[in-house]
């Protein structure tokens, strides 16, 4: 995709929805303060999706897919929620959650790398399995110990979310872009057999990749619970599709071998802005449309995805892209 297209779509979207929500500015300072709180909200709201999307980008680069992310985030949040709140939460629930989620991610990776189960099937199975475990842990309850933990709230605020995002997208993204590790990932996504012959430890790289998704799922669980304060066994269903749509919209190929972290970042924000904007335009919609405007979200999401990927493949029409799957 042309590198300026995604930010342009994003800006156009923000302008359009701001106009639609009926917001009027009396002065520049007014507008600045409005947009400051707007972006702060946007960042906090989409922090979990952004974090997961970072991992999903790497997974799609390996020509894999991870459908279990939503269940994984929910499971770790459920397990952490079963611990009593209080300062000891930091050295009981948090390390345990981290260990658990690394295990969950590595399980995906091991099944894919060692047993040769295709990623889409493995993670489809673990998605059901991990979601089932959520119900085993939680039953029908909804628990909310998180905000009683001292210092936990900070994770859901702008500074906390921004720090985590700078850490992943800024530092890790910057390092990855230059790293040998990511080149190996891209190569094994482009052609796993060639990668094996080139001496790349394919199995180890795959397990690392899915382990990283686990790690990011943990961070996402932290930001999600800090912001939403409660969790139930059916939290975050459908997160995986939202994430995949965002990543693909950002220009990462599902066939593997290519991808961009910055594109993913824009992709997530485009969807978040649309989501938020449609909510803000509810009043305008109820006056002018014969249907609820929030229903448009699904339709726009679908069309955006097709349009984005189509533009993306047209760009690369010289390269051979297999149309199936």
């Amino acid at each position, binding site marked *: 995709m042309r590198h300026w297209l995604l930010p342009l779509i994003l800006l156009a979207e923000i302008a359009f929805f701001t106009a639609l929500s009926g917001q009027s500015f009396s002065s520049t300072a007014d507008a600045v303060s409005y947009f400051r709180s707007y972006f702060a909200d946007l960042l906090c709201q989409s922090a979990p999706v952004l974090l997961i999307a970072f991992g999903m980008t790497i997974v799609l680069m390996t020509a894999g897919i991870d459908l279990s992310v939503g269940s994984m985030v929910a499971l770790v949040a459920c397990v952490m929620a079963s611990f009593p709140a209080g300062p000891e939460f930091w050295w009981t629930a948090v390390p345990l959650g981290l260990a658990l989620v690394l295990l969950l991610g590595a399980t995906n990776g091991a099944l894919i790398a060692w047993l040769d189960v295709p990623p889409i099937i493995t993670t*489809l199975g673990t998605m059901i399995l991990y979601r089932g475990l959520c119900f085993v842990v939680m039953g029908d309850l909804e628990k909310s110990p998180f905000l009683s933990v001292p210092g936990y709230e900070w994770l859901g605020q702008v500074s906390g979310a921004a720090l985590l995002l700078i850490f992943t997208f800024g530092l890790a993204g910057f390092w990855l872009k230059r790293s040998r590790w990511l080149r190996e990932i891209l190569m094994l996504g482009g052609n796993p057999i060639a990668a094996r012959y080139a001496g790349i430890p394919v199995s180890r790289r795959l397990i690392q990749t899915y382990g990283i998704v686990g790690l990011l799922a943990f961070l996402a669980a932290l930001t999600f619970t800090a912001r939403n304060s409660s969790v139930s066994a059916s939290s975050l*269903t459908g997160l995986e599709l939202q994430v995949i749509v965002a990543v693909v919209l950002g220009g990462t190929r599902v066939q593997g071998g290519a991808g961009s972290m910055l594109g993913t970042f824009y992709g997530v924000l485009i969807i978040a802005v649309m989501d938020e904007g449609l909510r803000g335009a509810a009043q305008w919609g109820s006056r002018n449309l014969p249907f609820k405007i929030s229903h*448009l979200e699904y339709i726009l999401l679908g069309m955006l995805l097709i349009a984005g990927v189509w533009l993306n493949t047209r760009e690369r029409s010289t390269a051979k892209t297999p149309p199936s799957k």
Partner: protein
Amino acid sequence: MTHGRLSPSLRQRLLFLLAGNFLLLVGIAITMKQGGSFAEVLTRCGPNVAPVVLAGLGMTGIICTGAIDLSIASIIVVSGTVFGILVQRQWPPLLCFVACIGTALLLSAANGLLIRKLRLPAIIITLAGLALYRGVALVLADVSIPGFGGSIDIQRDEYHAPGKQFATLILLGTLGSALIWEWFAVTPRRWLALGSSEESCRLAGLNPHAIRQSAFVVGGLFLGIAAVIYVTQIQFIEPARLALGFELQVIGAVILGGTNIFGGEGSYAGTALGALFLYFTGQWMTYAGVSPYFQEAITGALIIGVIGLDCALHRKRKRMEELA
């Protein structure tokens, strides 16, 4: 898609599932408490398993070509909404059923057409369809039903006939014709050819794009029948929540039935057995008194277990092919 000899791996999977289903039935018979009737388990099986099996038949063909359809649940939602709207307008039952099937057929064909014209991967198009079609259904309901409150109430009995009275009959009839068609017709074999190698397909003078689209059209027909049974079994059609996660259930049954997720291998019989296996597992867990909270986890572990074992058994052969 079982023409000629079954491949050894597919035959192994079919035998495995047959044995598994038999064992599960034995398990159900043993764990059943006094007063429960085994015949009732069998008669209830038809209506319950029919939507998954029928949608699975369509999905099998699509996956055999190397494509996938993630939008089937949303297509069912649109079909159901169209059905509900027509029922509200007092159309005769038969016409409503036909419209329901027609909608599914149309949308599935549209998926195929988009994939063909835009040359995009099926997973992308149908992922978009998953969101798009549900939105279409919601808008459609809002626009055509004044004061739409989120669900459409289907009250009269004649509108429930396919799901409640004739489900088993429709299932057996469709499955039977599908198996015969699979055995004798050339189209399913073309799907397999396409799934095995698109390049060879083209070199042999076949049109890969047309073949892939035919899988979506046939899939749409099966999906339409599944949709009719699905939406006539329930009292309230809620476009926002109807059939959530149905596509995963169906894909689970299809791959459990031995269809290769990358295409080129699969059978209708396997899909039917796979769906039965998942259904009987749930039933057996209920009869054995397994807590409902554990059932989903066990089902997930089972899918991973069966397929993981199968993949591990074929791992060596696959590696050898890779090296060749």
